């Protein structure tokens, strides 16, 4: 593989990670506020189909992306309404929506299958795109990929560096304390769930109008991405920067699978495509295992030097969810 091919390959990894990134960041924001939006897998499929259909009919890519955000926000609104107002299980409603939106996408998308449609083109950034290495890698992408770069830092800065972001952390960690501080916990949860949903809604069009342009029904290869994004959210420890790392790692592994496929003809391609999933479980295990009681007991038996090392390693990987994740809040 030449240098140029490698660079192009890595640039394609950055582009392929964009939809996953939107999903993961949207979910991170929603979960930071204390609401799990489990519907993601269906939302991604429905927004991919809906955006493509609208973009095809109106011949406007922007309307396509807007449709995606609107659908994502609407699905999130159902999750918010049923969990915050009706006090139903977030997991139950989210899971049903995940299946419902998927089937709805297949049903409504039937007439749009395998039709060539509009597609986002790469916009090289003048001046920067010509730079050696960096230019190919970062500055020769579609608008939506640039937006994914910006989104990482925007979300990170919002959550950790602003006052409203501090409140957002508060309503997910200690809603009662945030309430005393004057936050309208449930209204904020509504707001952030819907905003998160709109961002998740960008993931679908990022596929159907850019990365994997078009709609191919059940063979679109998008079924399952939402579940992956959900585990990357946990891997990311509810921090956009770490979540971005997880998304890029996932996209890189998938790309590696494609590259290796040419070199290892004995392994069926279907296997390499799903190879990142076991790795995802392993990372989830590493992220969570530090909390297990037996681990603490085992570590206590180790010699001091080794124990410190192990503890530091596990602590670095560890991520604990927002304390009030999935717990309804009542002010009275």
């Amino acid at each position: 593989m030449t240098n140029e091919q490698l660079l192009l390959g890595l640039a394609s990894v950055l582009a392929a990670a964009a939809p996953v990134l939107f999903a993961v960041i949207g979910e991170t924001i929603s979960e930071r506020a204390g609401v799990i939006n489990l519907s993601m897998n269906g939302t991604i499929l429905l927004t991919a189909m809906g955006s493509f259909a609208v973009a095809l009919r109106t011949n406007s890519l922007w309307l396509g992306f807007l449709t995606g955000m609107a659908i994502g926000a609407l699905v999130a609104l159902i999750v918010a309404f049923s969990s915050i107002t009706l006090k139903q299980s977030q997991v139950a409603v989210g899971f049903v929506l995940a299946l419902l939106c998927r089937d709805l996408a297949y049903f409504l998308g039937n007439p749009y299958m395998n039709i060539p449609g509009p597609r986002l083109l790469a916009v090289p950034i003048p001046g920067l795109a010509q730079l050696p290495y960096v230019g190919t890698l970062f500055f020769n992408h579609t608008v939506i990929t640039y937006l994914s770069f910006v989104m990482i830092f925007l979300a990170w800065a919002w959550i950790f560096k602003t006052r409203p972001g501090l409140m957002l952390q508060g309503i997910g960690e200690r809603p009662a304390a945030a309430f005393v501080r004057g936050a309208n916990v449930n209204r904020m949860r509504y707001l952030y769930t819907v905003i998160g949903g709109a961002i998740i809604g960008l993931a679908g069009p990022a596929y159907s109008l850019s990365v994997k342009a078009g709609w191919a029904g059940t063979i679109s290869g998008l079924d399952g991405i939402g579940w992956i994004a959900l585990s990357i959210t946990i891997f990311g420890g509810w921090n956009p920067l770490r979540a971005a790392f997880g998304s890029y790692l996932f996209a890189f592994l998938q790309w590696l699978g494609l590259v290796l496929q040419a070199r290892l003809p004995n392994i069926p391609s279907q296997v390499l495509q799903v190879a990142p999933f076991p790795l995802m479980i392993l990372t989830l295990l590493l992220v969570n295992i530090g909390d297990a009681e037996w681990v603490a007991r085992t570590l206590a038996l180790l010699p001091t030097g080794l124990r410190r090392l192990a503890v530091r390693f596990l602590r670095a990987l560890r991520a604990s969810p927002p304390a009030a994740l999935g717990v309804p809040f009542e002010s009275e």
Partner: protein
Amino acid sequence: MEGSKGAKLTAKTIKWISPLFQAAAFLLALSFTTLILLAVGAPPGQAYLNILKGAFGNTNSIANVLVVWAPLLLTTVGVLITFSAGLWNIGVEGQVTLGAIFTTWVLRLLQESALPPWLIILLAMLAGMLGGALWAALAGALKTFGGVNEIFGGLGLNFVATALTLWLIFGPWKRPGTGSMSGTLPFPETLWLPTLSGLRLSPWALGLALLAVVVVYLMLRGTRFGLRLKAVGKNMRAAYLLGVPTWQHMMASFLLCGLLAGLAGALQVTAVYHRLIPSISSGYGFLGLLVAMLVNYQAVWAVPVALFFAALNIGSIQLPIVLRLDSSLAGVLQGLLVLSVLLVEGARQQIMKRLRLSDESAPVEERP
């Protein structure tokens, strides 16, 4: 005295109001589906009639509905056990798949042997149950010893199970020549679970599924184990303090669910496909979760509701040919049904709560 009279009235109201709300939920789902059909320009009446005919039009189609019903019942009552323990066993899909893989494995190992066919089938199905239980145990171990939430562990394991299936079909177990998405080579007819003459329906599959419903119903209803399981599911900390070994009960519920899901997978191989195919689980794991939610976690109701869902699945198969509609309409209707039941139930609870606020003495109603 005034207070107790008020409470009586409320209890009575609850009794007749509940089915009313459920009927409203059903109508809501149906009207929404009708709107969707109208939106795509399809005749709703014809679509529903087509589903009905496709499911119950002749003996053959009725038999096919029952072919779907059996594994769906197994996964439904399986996840009822894990739901009782407060666990969301999304990994049930992978547990079905592993059941199918283990069954295929044993059938392949023994098909050349001198053992009588019935024994081979029996061993293969037992292996399938073991496979499902093993996969469930993995999700359970990840949860208990690794702190990985069963939803995420289960989802990951589902993907691994799919990968394993594909690898086997295209790798070690591939058909002579090149592997294909149509699966492994079919087994000889002697290794098929006997079916009713001329139909795809195996009475054995049906019998096993109904037996499982009865066993699970009795277990959750009338045994110490079932009671403790529910205690763990309702309030783990309280159960632990009362001396119920909590993680052991959670693990046991995983294992039992895995056994039933594995049996569903075994039936898919021995009674339906007679080989391993890429989508061997047919989504019955997820569908079972939906049914379990719809019946409000009651095993008895699983029987008619699973039948209804199976009928929708089979009835919609003809839709693409007759009306040029995608067969995923069945999934849309199923999903809408569960969603509206959840929403309407939530609304009912909120309304009841409001009413109760004005009548403090009313009995407190609990729901899992």
